[in-house]
């Protein structure tokens, strides 16, 4: 494509300001909606993942376990290759934590003549160990070790949570596809509308002897540029909205592990690239349909 075609495309855009603005805005709006959904989906997934990472197995130890015996337990758990981290929590530490957690009502504990809490091991799981079965398997193994009194993990809760998580992923995927197809149709249709409204002009250009490329190149450049600008404006608008609103959403207490993030740069670029490609494809089909080229 020559520089002249690019120059003519720019002149065309200036000459058809209104049409171009309308189409760029339409494209940016649909990209905005699609990206907003993706943004929500990414963060919701992060959030749920964070929660799942919080799943721990707690092994309560029998009374009076020596340090050597404890080390044997830790080694045994480590050989299973499922534990990310194993933390020893002494009964004293547990007591202190409990006192802190109940705060004002800590006087309730004053009536106890001795610490009722056992020593324990807190086992956080490796990233790969997330399924219900994996966790159950590990928990059973740990409870079979000598000197382990009891094993605790959020069994029922985890079960239900996994269901919700999977449902969320599936519906999210389906919705994203629907949004994607809708965006695709909107962009392609906008380009089509522009072509349709310009078919007379294009007919005139052909009557004065323009060949196919003379007609086509600027149209392609325009369509791709519209896709590009629409995509960039959509994403940037979403980014601004994100930056302006997110600091206001406080993520404290139970949610402190979670930090909202924007759509990754690579993903954003992919969205813009998609938008450009759809512009190109929309142009291709409109040219075939309306211009019979």
């Amino acid at each position, binding site marked *: 494509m020559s520089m002249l075609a690019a120059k003519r495309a720019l002149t065309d855009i200036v000459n058809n300001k209104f049409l171009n603005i309308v189409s760029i805005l339409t494209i940016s709006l649909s990209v905005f909606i699609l990206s907003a959904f993706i943004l929500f989906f990414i963060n919701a997934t992060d959030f749920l993942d964070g929660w799942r990472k919080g799943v721990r197995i707690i092994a309560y130890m029998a009374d009076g376990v020596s340090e050597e015996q404890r080390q044997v337990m830790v080694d045994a758990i480590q050989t299973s290759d499922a534990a990310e981290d194993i933390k020893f929590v002494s009964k004293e530490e547990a007591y202190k934590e409990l006192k802190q957690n109940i705060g004002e009502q800590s006087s309730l504990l004053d009536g106890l003549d001795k610490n009722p809490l056992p020593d324990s091991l807190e086992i956080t799981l490796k990233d790969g160990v997330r399924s219900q079965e994996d966790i159950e398997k590990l928990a059973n193994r740990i409870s079979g070790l000598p000197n382990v009194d009891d094993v605790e993990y959020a069994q029922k809760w985890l079960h239900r949570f996994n269901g919700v998580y999977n449902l969320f992923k599936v519906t999210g995927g389906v919705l994203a596809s629907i949004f994607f197809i809708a965006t695709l149709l909107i962009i392609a249709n906008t380009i089509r509308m522009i072509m349709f409204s310009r078919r007379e002009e294009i007919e005139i250009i*052909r009557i004065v002897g323009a060949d196919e490329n003379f007609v086509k190149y600027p149209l392609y450049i325009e369509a791709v540029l519209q896709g590009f600008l629409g995509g960039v404006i959509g994403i940037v608008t979403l980014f601004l909205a994100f930056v302006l609103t997110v600091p206001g959403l406080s993520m404290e207490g139970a949610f402190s592990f979670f930090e909202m993030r924007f759509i990754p740069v690579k993903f954003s670029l992919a969205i813009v690239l998609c938008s450009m490609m759809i512009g190109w494809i929309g142009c291709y089909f409109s040219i075939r349909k309306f211009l019979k080229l």
Partner: protein
Amino acid sequence: MFVMHKDNTIIRMFRVSKRYGKMEALSDLTLEIRNNEFVFITGPSGAGKSTMIKLLYMGEIASEGAIIIDGVYMERITRKQIPHLRRKFGVIFQDFKLIPTKTVFQNVALVLEVLGVKPKEIQPRVMEALERVGIDDRAGELPPVLSGGEKQRVAVARAIVGEPKIILADEPTGSLDPDSASHIFQLLQEAHATGTTVVVATHDQHMINTGHGRVIRLVKGHLNPDDEARRIERGMDP
């Protein structure tokens, strides 16, 4: 491209018919137009005048027969070559066919861009064409603000700027007042005077009477036989 033996004939139609479905717009038309002739094509509405013009610039393809333009046999032409053929013509329409979003200047410059004229040369050539039709002072305006007569002058400028061999005009004065009409007619005659072949389809009896062109009369898609007879009497047989 199949190139015919060159003589003084620039447009040759041999047994040309054009059908739209069952409707025969042109029937078995045979005629020749010589280089630098000024030709009026006239006849009642629906006679096939516009159809004939369209066949010449390949806006439509003949159903039957042969058309040879400037030595190029249209039947043998490929789709890709149509644009090259069209560059031999400047075409003027009753409804102007200016691009409303392009300025007067850009509308005229378009032809030169299509012809691949160097960008530097476009500006002076466009301005010269606009001066010739007397509308250079409106170069920066968009067509919708111009009067009908002014629009048609822009269309004439567009038709002449590429210095085509042939100008085709379909009812160029059909929607103009008499003054504007005679101005356009005068511009066509000036183009003719510089060596261009001019073919005008028109109802405008005044224009036909005052001009010194050859008259081809179509009736229901046929050449008027009386006309042909008179032509032969006058010794104009090719």
